C-alpha cells in the first residue's frame, strides 16, 4: 500500500476513534473506587504473576511442602497478609 493510501486509512480509523470520548465521571469514579479498596484484600495478581522469590533450591523431592510453605509465608508478608500455617 502506498503512503497516500496508508495516510487516508490512518485518517479514517483515527477520526472514528477520536469521535469516542470517555465518560465525564471517570475521575470521580476512579478516586472513589481507590478510596474504597479493601486494605486487606489478597492481591492474587501480585502473588501469582509477580512473585518476589522465583525459585527455591530443593535438596530432595520431599522438600516441596517446605518450599510451598516458605513461598506462601514470604509472599504473604509482601502483601501484608498475616497467614499462619499450622
Amino acid at each position, binding site marked *: 500500500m502506498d503512503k497516500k*493510501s496508508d495516510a487516508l486509512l*490512518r485518517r479514517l480509523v*483515527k477520526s472514528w476513534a477520536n469521535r*469516542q470520548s470517555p465518560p465525564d465521571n*471517570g475521575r470521580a469514579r*476512579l*478516586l472513589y473506587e481507590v478510596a474504597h479498596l479493601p486494605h486487606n484484600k489478597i492481591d492474587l495478581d501480585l502473588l501469582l504473576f509477580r512473585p518476589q522469590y522465583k525459585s527455591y533450591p530443593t535438596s530432595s523431592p520431599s522438600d516441596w511442602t517446605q518450599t510451598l510453605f516458605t513461598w506462601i509465608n514470604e509472599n504473604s508478608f509482601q502483601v501484608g497478609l498475616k497467614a499462619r500455617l499450622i
Partner: protein
Amino acid sequence: MSLDLEKAEAISDSQLIFSMQAGSLEALGVLYDRHRRMVFRTAIAITGDSEAAADLSQDVFLRLHRFADHIDPLRPLEPWLYRMTTNLSYTWVERRQRWLRPLEDVADWLAGARKDTPAYQAEMDDSWRQVQQAVLALPLSHRGVVVLYYVNDLSLLEISEILDIPVGTVKSRLHYGRQALKRRLGLLAGEIFPELQYEFT
C-alpha cells in the same frame, strides 16, 4: 502529599508516579486526566463497546494505582498504559466471545431485531459504524496492531515492545489488517473524504 492542580500540566509523568507511590491520589487523578482519552480510545477501538471501554479504562488506572510500587518512574508511562489496555481489552473480547456473545444473540433474537430500530440506528452515523465494523471484523491479534498503529501513531518497534511480539510479526499483522480495511473501506473512504477518493483507487 498535595499537588497544585493549576500547575499539574507542567508536572511530568515521572514526578506524578513518584507522588503516587508516596500515596497521592491527586497524582493518580492528574495522570488519569492526562491519559484517559488515549486509554479509552484504545479500549473502544479493540472492544467496540463504549461501556466496556469505560470499565476497562477504570481498571487500567486502578491497576496503575495498585501496582504503583512496581512501576519505574524513570521510564515512560505510556507503553505501560498501552500494554495494560490492550491486554485487558483482549481478555474482555475473548471472554465475551466465549460466554456472553451467544447469550446476547439469544437476547437479541428474543427482543426482536433491536438493531434495526430507529433509536439504535441513530446512535451512530452509518459511515462511522461501517468503520467500526471493519475494524472489529479484524482478528483480535491484527486489530490490536492496527489500533496501536493507526489510532495511537506508534511505530512498529514500539508496538513490538508493547505487545511483546517480534517486529516481523507486527509487520505481517499490519499488512493483513491494512489489506482487509482497504477492501472494506475503500469506497467509504471516498464518501467521507471525497477530496481524497482517488487515493484508494
